[in-house]
């Protein structure tokens, strides 16, 4: 009887203390996003989402009485600018934690500042280098490429397809993908029979694909961001190649289907769960967060929430979660972030630890297939 009342008491006590602490000082959070420039497709939804989430939290009375205050700067994708603005956030605005930057290059540049000034940084970029090796003050919310590669290879292994051709774009994203595709192949018993690249501005990839058609590949894996993969999909159709085509998570957006049209049908790719949120079974841990994010974003911006916005959603909510667990200073927030366990966000279920500041496993990705009427989850 007594034990059953304990949670009840705790609830009452915390409610009161929350009420009493209503006048608690606001917690300042800095945001560094590439809202303009070449990485604007990342930075814009990230900034929108961060603003939206902070507003909603404050409307609901803040976190344990603390209102959140978001200070956002635009880095325009420039690492030098990102470092200056990070310093400004810490020295002039006295923020308690920083969300962002949007790209791996900027994040790597800002890390030394965060480490020196001892301010927690939750990066929204995907590069594996950001959290490997682990830096004391740096966390990230975007999924590693490793996990996406793992998803594809696992599927191929299950379907007994062991010879693959890879076609990667010659930029940072493609190079990282190519590295991971080669590094993990052996683990899944896969051999790469053809290894080609294409330029980010190339307009015709039939030469590379003709070469692949002549090889013994059982699957083609293409690693790039729009528009290249859409052209490749069209070229594959033109050449009448029947080998199954896989893409990276870099094109898991409506835009890809729009660009590739008919040619997109049948393509499989690993993707975060946002684009298939409504198709997930109710038992999925992330379902509630995903639906809330998609609905809110639609209401605020009349646009569909995407993965990138999701990275910022996760970053703000992870901070909120840490503050709910009693953190209110840079040091305590860092400590609580590291203790995060089983936090179901947009990018996946986060469990940080002292050895892991990326926090996700390969369940963060689902394999989806493009059908005539949109996405479908591949079992």
């Amino acid at each position: 009887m007594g034990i059953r009342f304990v949670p009840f008491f705790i609830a009452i006590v915390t409610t009161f203390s929350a009420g009493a602490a209503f006048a608690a000082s606001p917690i300042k959070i800095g945001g560094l996003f590439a809202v303009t420039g070449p990485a604007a497709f990342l930075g814009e939804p990230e900034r929108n989402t961060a603003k939206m989430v902070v507003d909603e939290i404050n409307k609901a009375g803040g976190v344990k009485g603390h209102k959140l205050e978001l200070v956002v700067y635009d880095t325009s994708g420039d690492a030098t600018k990102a470092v200056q603005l990070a310093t400004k956030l810490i020295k002039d605005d006295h923020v308690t934690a920083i969300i962002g930057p949007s790209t791996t290059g900027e994040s790597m540049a800002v890390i030394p500042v965060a480490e020196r000034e001892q301010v927690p940084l939750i990066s929204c970029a995907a590069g594996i280098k950001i959290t490997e090796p682990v830096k004391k003050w740096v966390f990230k919310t975007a999924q590693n490429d490793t996990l996406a590669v793992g998803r594809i290879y696992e599927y191929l292994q299950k379907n007994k397809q062991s010879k693959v051709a890879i076609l990667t774009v010659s930029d940072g994203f493609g190079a990282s993908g190519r590295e991971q595709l080669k590094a993990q192949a052996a683990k899944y018993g896969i051999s790469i029979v053809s290894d080609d690249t294409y330029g980010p501005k190339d307009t015709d990839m039939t030469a590379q694909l003709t070469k692949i058609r002549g090889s013994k590949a059982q699957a083609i894996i293409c690693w790039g961001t729009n528009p290249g993969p859409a052209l490749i999909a069209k070229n594959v159709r033109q050449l009448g190649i029947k080998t199954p085509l896989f893409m990276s998570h870099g094109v898991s957006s409506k835009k890809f289907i729009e660009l590739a049209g008919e040619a997109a049908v049948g393509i499989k790719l690993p993707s975060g769960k946002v684009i298939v949120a409504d198709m997930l079974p109710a038992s999925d841990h992330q379902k509630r967060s995903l639906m809330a994010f998609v609905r809110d974003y639609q209401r605020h911006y009349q646009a569909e929430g995407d993965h990138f916005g999701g990275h910022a959603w996760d970053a703000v909510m992870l901070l909120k979660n840490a503050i709910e667990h009693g953190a209110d200073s840079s040091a305590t927030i860092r400590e609580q972030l590291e203790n995060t366990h089983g936090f179901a966000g947009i990018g996946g279920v986060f469990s940080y630890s002292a050895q892991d500041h990326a926090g996700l496993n390969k369940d963060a990705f689902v394999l989806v297939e493009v059908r005539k009427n949109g996405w479908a989850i591949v079992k």
Partner: protein
Amino acid sequence: MKVREFLCKKRKIMQLEQILQYTFSGLSTGAIYALIGIGFSIIFNATGIINFAQGEFVMLGGMLTLFFLEVLKLPLWAAIPCAVAVSALAGLLFERLAIRPLRQPTPINLVIITIAGSILIRGLAMLLWGKDTHAIPPFTGDEPISIAGATILPQHIWILAITLLIIAVNKFFFFHTISGKAMRACSYNRRAAGLVGIDVRRMVLFSFVISSVLGSLAGIIVAPLTMTAYDVGIMLGLKGFCAAIIGGMSSGMATVVGGLILGVLESLGAGLISSGYKDAIAFIILLLILFIRPQGLFGKAESERV
């Protein structure tokens, strides 16, 4: 033994099919380079400058077609002439506002102005239409056509046919019309042309309009295959420039052949050597031609232009 022979034969056929495919791909990209290249040489012959904004008219062709299709909801057959007309107007304005008012029209000043113009046009396009890539529907379906083991799309046939048509019209214009002959006269000797009563400034204006029409047409016919965005003009412009250099800055067949050679070599290089060197091939050719045969691959030492 027989099995081995059979396999050997099969392999050879496959290789032939591959090379045929590379050649087809190369010819269609080459045709685009050729059209852009001719635009370069027409302006070069009329003014003696390289118009580095040429690539931007290629972009304008594609983006304007998209604009007329999506925003004004015109059908494709109406959107294309509208896009060409607006590009021609842009070419005209460019000459009137940026090239003509120049006090001291030294070639270096003019070339730098065209570079500035290209940055300006690209920036405006980005502000107007955003940074996204857009797809344009193919002119007539996209069911692949198989020719001797290689496959092409109906759009490839459109590209080759329209290029041929444009080259024929171009030839006719320069050799059988008064304006065309006057423009040729300007390219031989501006002063003499002026002395016999040819309005040289008008011919310069003409050359900009014709080049922007050619550029925008190239941009339109290639857009269904390659898609279009505000920044597609840079690379296509450079490749077109290479084609013009190979052709020795002639606005006739030499540049067309230059474009086709470039396209096919690129495609063969990507397929047989390595795809990483695709763009390098174009620029190595450019450098070699400039070093060894600056008059172009087919030109005599004192090249006859146009």
